C-alpha cells in the first residue's frame, strides 16, 4: 500500500510540474488577449490598461503563478478574459460531458474488442483471424478525423441520427425519459466514432496477450489432462492475460482523451475540446491552461486506476 501512496504522490508532483511548464510556456508567449483587444478601435488603450491591471496581467509571471495556484485551490482555475468569469464554472459542465463521452466510448470499445480479440486468438491463423486482422489494419489506417466525417456523412444521408450538439432545440421535451432519449440519440455518433478509433488498437493488444498465454506450456498441460475448453479459458487463461490489458486500460485513456477532444470538435459536442479550441483562438490563456491541466489530471487518474486494478489482480505486484 505504501507503494501505491508513492504513486499518488508522484502523480501529484507530475501535475504540478505540468502546470509550471505550461504556465512558463504561456508566459513567454508573444501576444495575449489584451493585444488582440488593442486592435479593436472601439476600446481605448486606457480601458485595456485598466483591465490588464484588474486581471493582474501586469505582474511578473511567478506572482501570477502563485495567484493562479491560489485560485486552483479554490476550484476557480484562474479567470477567463473572454467569458468574464472564473474558469472553473466554465469547466465543470464541459468536463462532465467529456467524461460521459469518453467513459461510454471506453465501455463500448472494450465490450467489442474483448470478444473480438479473444476470438481471433482462439482461431489463430485461420480465416477468421486473418479477416479480423485485415479489418483492424484498415480501421487503424483511417484517421479519427475521417471516421468522424464519415459518420457525419452517414448521419446526414440517412437522416436517422442527429448529428452535432448534445440536445435538440425543440422545447417539447419535459419528462426525464424524453430528455434521456434525446441525449442518447445525440451520443450515438460521437461514441461510435471514438470507439471505432479505439477498437483496432485494443483488439491487437487483446489478441497478442491471449496468444501469448494460450501458447504457454501450462495451458498445453491442462489441455492434455483433458480439462474442458471453457474451463481452460476462464480458469487458466483469462486471469493471466488480463494483467497486460489492465495497464492498457490506463494507456488507452490518454489516447481516448486526445481523440475525444478532436471528435467533440467535429461533432460539436459541448465538451472540453471546442472550449479549448475557442480559447486558443481567442488567446484566453487561463482557459487553455485549465483545459490542459484537467485533461492531464484525467490521464494521470486513469493511469492510477489501472495501477490500482493491477495491484488488485496481480499477486506478484502485491508481494513487492
Amino acid at each position, binding site marked *: 500500500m505504501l507503494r501505491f501512496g508513492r504513486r499518488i504522490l508522484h502523480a501529484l508532483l507530475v501535475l504540478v510540474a505540468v502546470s509550471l511548464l505550461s504556465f512558463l510556456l504561456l508566459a513567454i508567449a508573444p501576444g495575449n488577449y489584451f493585444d488582440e483587444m488593442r486592435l479593436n478601435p472601439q476600446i481605448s488603450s486606457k480601458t485595456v490598461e485598466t483591465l490588464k491591471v484588474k486581471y493582474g496581467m501586469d505582474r511578473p509571471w511567478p506572482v501570477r503563478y502563485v495567484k493562479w495556484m491560489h485560485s486552483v485551490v479554490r476550484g476557480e482555475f484562474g479567470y477567463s478574459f473572454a467569458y468574464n468569469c472564473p474558469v472553473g464554472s466554465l469547466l465543470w459542465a464541459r468536463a462532465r460531458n467529456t467524461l460521459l463521452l469518453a467513459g461510454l466510448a471506453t465501455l463500448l470499445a472494450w465490450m467489442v474488442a474483448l470478444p473480438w480479440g479473444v476470438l481471433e486468438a482462439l482461431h489463430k491463423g485461420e480465416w477468421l483471424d486473418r479477416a479480423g486482422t485485415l479489418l483492424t489494419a484498415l480501421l487503424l489506417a483511417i484517421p479519427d478525423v475521417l471516421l468522424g466525417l464519415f459518420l457525419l456523412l452517414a448521419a*446526414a444521408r440517412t437522416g436517422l441520427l442527429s448529428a452535432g450538439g448534445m440536445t435538440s432545440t425543440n422545447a417539447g421535451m419535459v419528462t426525464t425519459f424524453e430528455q434521456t432519449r434525446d441525449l442518447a440519440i445525440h451520443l450515438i455518433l460521437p461514441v461510435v466514432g471514438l470507439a471505432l478509433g479505439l477498437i483496432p488498437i485494443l483488439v491487437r493488444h487483446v489478441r497478442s496477450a491471449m496468444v501469448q498465454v494460450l501458447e504457454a506450456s501450462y495451458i498445453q498441460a491442462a489441455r492434455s489432462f483433458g480439462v474442458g475448453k471453457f474451463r481452460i479459458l476462464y480458469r487458466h487463461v483469462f486471469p493471466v492475460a488480463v494483467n497486460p490489458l489492465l495497464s492498457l486500460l490506463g494507456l488507452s485513456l490518454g489516447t481516448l482523451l486526445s481523440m475525444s477532444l478532436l471528435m467533440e470538435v467535429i461533432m460539436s459536442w459541448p465538451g472540453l475540446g471546442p472550449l479549448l479550441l475557442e480559447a486558443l483562438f481567442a488567446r484566453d490563456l487561463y482557459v487553455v491552461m485549465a483545459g490542459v491541466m484537467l*485533461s492531464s489530471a484525467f490521464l494521470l487518474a486513469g493511469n492510477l486506476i489501472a495501477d490500482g486494478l493491477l495491484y488488485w489482480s496481480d499477486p506478484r505486484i502485491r508481494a513487492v
Partner: protein
Amino acid sequence: MRIAWNTKNRALAFVLLAVHLPVVFAGFFSPNGYATQNRNLPFAPPTKLHFVDEAGHFHFRPFVYESTEAGSASNYQESRVARFPVRFFVKSAGEDSSNSGSPQLHFFGVEQPGLIYLMGTDGFGRDVFSRMLFGGRISLTAGILATGLALSLAIVLGVISGFYGHWVDTMVMRGVDIFLALPWLCLLFAVRAVLPLHIRTTETFLLFVGIIGIVGWARPARLIRGLVLTAKERNFVLASRAFGASDFHILRRHILPQVTGTLLTLVALLIPQFLLAEVTLSFLGLGVGEPLPSLGNLLAELQKYSVLTSYWWMYCPAIALVVLFLAYQWTAKTLQDEITEVTL
C-alpha cells in the same frame, strides 16, 4: 540486419515508390498549379476521359470535352464541340504559382485551352488532384522532418540517460513523465497557443515541424533508453570497457549498432503518427494556411455540410490519406517481422 528481397518485400517497395513519387515530384505529376483558380468552374465534377467521339469513332488517345455550367450553379454538362486530347510530357504556359513563372514540364495534360481535373475542382475552381499531390508533399515533409527532429532528440536524450544513468537518467525520465502525462493533442494545443496565430506560411510550416518534434520525443526516448540499458550490460561491451575503450567509442561502435534496427522501425511508426498530427492541426485551422494545401487543409473543406453531402470527389484526398497510412502500416509490420518488435 538484412531485409530479405523476396516478392512480398518487392511489392512493398513498389507500393512505397508508387505512393511517394507522385507526391515528391508533385510539380511534375500534377497537371495544374495548386493555387490556380478557375472561378467559372466551382465544384466541377471530375473530367471524364473519352475514347469514342460523337460520331462513334474510336480514338486510341483519350480526350476530354469542355465542361460548361448548365442552368443552375454547380450543375455541369459537357459541351461536345471540341475534343481536347490528353498528351504526355507537356509544357505548361508557366502561369501557375507553384513555380517562379518558368514553364514547367508536366507528366500529362490536355491540349490548350482544354482543362483536365482528374478529381474535380473545389469551391474556387482549383484542381483537387493537384492540390492533393502538393498537399501530400507538404504533409509528408512535415511528418518526415518532425520524425527526424523527435528521433534526434530521443536518441541524444535516451542514449545519455541510459548510458550515464544516475541523476541525468532521473532528470530525463522525469521529463518524459511530464510529457507523457499530457494527452498529445492537448500538448500540441498548449505549444501552439504559445506561438502567434497569424504568421507567414513558410514560418508556420517550420514552426509546425518544431512543435510536433518537440512534443513527440518522449516515448521514443524512453524506448531507446531501455535498449541502451540492456545493451551496455552485454559482455562484449563490458569487455571493450575493460580494454579501456572510451565512452564515445563504446557508444559509436557497440551501443548504437544495437539500436539501429529499432530506430528504423520507429521511423516507420512515427512518420504516419506525426503526419496525422499535422493533419489534425491543419484540420482544426491551426496549421498550414491557405492557399497552401496540406492533407489536413483539404479534409477541413469536408466540414462544410454542403461539401460533405454533395461533392463526392472532395473525398479523394481522404482516401489518399488512408492509402498512405496503409502503406506505412505495412512497412512498419514488415520491419517489425524482419528486424525487431517495437511497441510504442
